[in-house]
């Protein structure tokens, strides 16, 4: 009689207590992902050989390559081959094909079209990328696999368990999708922890803080605000709210749109990603600078734009206002005045934006804490929780249901079974009855959200309770029980209690992966038995090197005349050295040779840029001249 909406085959913990493998904390972000390990209550970000802790959440599927490429290398590929690259996949986690329309304008990926649908709710979104069809779960699994490998390289031992953070506002299907991705990446999820809770953990343990804390988390693609009570090692979430479709990416998008509008011409879909990347850099620079110059070069036209901080702030003000409104609503929900807070914690790179800091300070009535890097704080907290779960600890996290859970009743209305901000784990039951004589089945539709009507909320699952013995209307007693476990995952059971007759439940999940799809993916990932970590990293270095050579070749074809024979010789030598390195098996050598070629090519790149600017400027002068002549 149990209906599992979440993935039902729970993996039992393979090893208890001490083991040869490590348990890490993972921040699987929209823009960036990080992995951290905590030992004796001291968490640390695990970095690559170059000291880089961030893995951009970007995956490239290159034609002719078995292994996808993840992180910085994939990001560089994005400029040249945007159609082969997936970014911000977190926004699609647990989304059904029906949701895509809602997100439409925000997607840089091409959604796979299965052809005319069968009229049902549709399954999980799939993406067309680099000539393949992949699901968001598979893409996330690649990021997790990369993080796992990074951790294994850094620690010199296996990593098979993790605490993974999710936005507090992630709904049930997105949480399930995250668990599925971890499973594909060979990681057992010890616990899904909400990002704001993890951030509070990173701050709280450090200083033995007590009192009420607000966590303002403006991630790449989601915004959460949570209110926590910290007391003697207990982290109790009192209320949480936010916006699952608003993030730092939207600040970039607002600026990018402004720049494109300023140019006054249309932009091809393929040019959007580079402009977004430029906007993002400009946003970051405007944190310290009062104004920045931005160069755009697409559609056969190069333009330069000046953006002042005030202009940028005017562009993003409506977005920031949405976050502060949500923050005010969370305080109100919990019946807490801003003055009662002991501190405000910032999470997410976009909280470096001065306007965001100022507005947070205004709405909460105090300057936010900022001494832990807002990009790292979530992963550090996750690592602490992973240690607490495997080694034991005195801290305790008590979390809540972020969104109300209920059932559709007559007329498309919603009956809330578990209201939002109810502490988890929780189990609540509601009794229903039949409304027709002899009714033998009842359709049960599970929804999540705060609105009154079904169609304004998120549909989680539909199933039919069949086999109800014939009775007069109103005589059957059908008890529907909602159970949310400590990960925030929901299970729904339905039983006809009156007669004790065994009834039958048919399950039809609206979204997420079916067991069969999951099985296929697991099998596939085992079949292409993963090359070991070193091979994979070597492959990435080679891909990066190949990109550089290709870019250089095309530049030389156009502007080769800018170089003297001697300079050209230097570049050719560096290139030959890189090709030799690529034929070898040593990753470090490939990276070093790539850097050497980049260095050798730098004066050339600078001269090309000058030439392009001159071309653009002379164009301007000619047109001005023309307009003057006409005016005269």
């Amino acid at each position, binding site marked *: 009689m149990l209906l599992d909406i979440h993935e039902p085959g729970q993996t039992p913990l393979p090893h208890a207590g001490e083991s040869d493998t490590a348990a890490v904390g993972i921040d699987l972000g929209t823009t960036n992902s990080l992995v951290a390990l905590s030992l004796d209550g001291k968490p640390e970000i695990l970095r690559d050989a170059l000291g880089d802790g961030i893995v951009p959440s970007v995956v490239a599927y290159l034609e002719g390559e078995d292994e996808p490429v993840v992180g910085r290398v994939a990001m560089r590929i994005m400029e040249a081959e945007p159609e082969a690259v997936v970014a911000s996949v977190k926004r699609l986690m647990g989304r059904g094909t029906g949701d895509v329309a809602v997100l439409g304008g925000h997607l840089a990926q091409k959604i796979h079209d299965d052809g005319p649908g069968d009229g049902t709710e549709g399954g999980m979104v799939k993406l067309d990328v680099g000539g393949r069809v992949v699901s968001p779960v598979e893409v996330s699994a690649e990021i997790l696999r990369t993080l796992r490998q990074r951790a294994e390289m850094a620690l010199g031992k296996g990593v098979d368990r993790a605490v993974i953070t999710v936005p507090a506002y992630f709904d049930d299907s997105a949480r399930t999708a995250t668990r599925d991705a971890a499973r594909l990446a060979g990681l057992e999820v010890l616990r899904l922890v909400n990002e704001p809770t993890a951030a509070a953990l990173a701050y709280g343990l450090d200083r033995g803080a007590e009192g009420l804390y607000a966590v303002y988390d403006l991630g790449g693609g989601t915004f959460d605000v949570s209110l926590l009570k910290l007391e003697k090692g207990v982290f109790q979430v009192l209320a949480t709210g936010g916006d699952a479709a608003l993030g730092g990416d939207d600040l970039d998008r607002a600026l990018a749109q402004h720049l494109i509008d300023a140019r006054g011409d249309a932009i091809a879909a393929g040019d959007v990603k580079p402009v977004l990347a430029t906007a993002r850099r400009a946003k970051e620079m405007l944190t310290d600078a009062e104004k920045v110059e931005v160069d755009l070069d697409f559609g056969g036209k190069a333009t330069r734009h000046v953006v002042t901080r005030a202009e940028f702030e005017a562009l993003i003000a409506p977005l920031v206002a949405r976050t502060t*409104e*949500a923050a005010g609503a969370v305080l109100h929900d919990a019946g807490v005045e801003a003055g009662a807070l002991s501190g405000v914690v910032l999470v997410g790179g976009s909280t470096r934006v001065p306007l965001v800091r100022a507005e947070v300070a205004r709405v909460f009535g105090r300057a936010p804490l900022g001494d832990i890097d807002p990009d790292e704080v979530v992963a550090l907290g996750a690592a602490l929780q992973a240690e607490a779960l495997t080694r034991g600890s005195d801290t305790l996290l008590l979390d809540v249901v972020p969104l109300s859970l209920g059932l559709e009743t007559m007329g498309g209305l919603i009956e809330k079974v578990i209201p939002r901000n109810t502490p988890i784990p929780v189990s609540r039951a509601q009794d229903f009855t039949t409304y027709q004589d002899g009714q033998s089945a009842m359709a049960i539709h599970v929804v999540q959200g705060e609105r009154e009507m079904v169609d304004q909320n998120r549909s989680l699952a539909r199933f039919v309770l069949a086999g109800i013995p014939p009775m007069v209307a109103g005589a059957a007693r059908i008890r529907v029980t909602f159970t949310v476990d400590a990960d925030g995952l929901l299970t729904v059971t339905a039983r006809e209690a009156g007669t004790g007759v065994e009834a039958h439940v048919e399950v039809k999940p609206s979204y997420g992966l079916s067991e069969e799809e999951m099985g296929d993916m697991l099998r596939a990932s085992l079949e292409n038995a993963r090359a070991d970590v070193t091979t994979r990293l070597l492959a990435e270095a080679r891909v990066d090197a190949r990109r550089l050579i290709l870019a250089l070749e095309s530049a030389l074809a156009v502007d080769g005349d800018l170089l003297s024979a001697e300079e050209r010789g230097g570049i050719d030598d560096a290139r030959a050295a890189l090709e030799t390195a690529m034929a070898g098996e040593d990753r470090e050598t490939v990276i070093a040779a790539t850097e050497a070629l980049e260095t050798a090519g730098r004066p050339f790149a600078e001269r090309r840029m000058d030439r392009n600017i001159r071309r653009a400027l002379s164009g301007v002068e000619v047109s001005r001249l023309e307009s003057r002549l006409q005016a005269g």
Partner: protein
Amino acid sequence: MMVEPAERPISCASCGGEVADAICAACNALQPPGQIDHFARLGVDRSYAVDPAALERAYFAAQRRFHPDRFAGRGAKEKTFSLQHATLINEAYETLRDPLARARYLLELEGRPLPGGDGQTIADPELLMAAMEWREALEEAETPDQIADIARRLVAETGEVEAALGTAFAAHDLDSAIHEALRLSYLVKLGSELKRRRAPGLARI
């Protein structure tokens, strides 16, 4: 009520030895939760008068002991038991911390459940009259000052009703307790309506 807990076995669910506590003294294994009332579950006295700070301490202590995070490394059986314990502890805390839910629960334990559910009808004419007066006042209130004034009166009357409930339960006067609990239920409803009217822009979902 919500989850049917298994009877506490006399013998340990893990090693088979005799157990007196939720955690077996011999093998340290967690036992399934027993069928005890919410007060016993949190280890506080059964009474309407509850000290919120003491209740919270008892709640934290219980979760510290039984929360699934404490049993992440144990076997599937103990994990399930801890999930059941933690669920019941949350239910107990959510019930006892709320003055109206606590009154309802105590009346249930006494075998005198409060009539009606959420959409209850008030049969007592005096209560009905008072409820209607409140409703009218709320409908007529327009300025923030007027609404704030109603909120103040509501808080004051809620305090009176809670005190009266304490007295009624202490004297085991269940008729009065039912009367006061019904009064409290419409005050609570009014309170949530008032809160909606004062909400600063609804959270986006």
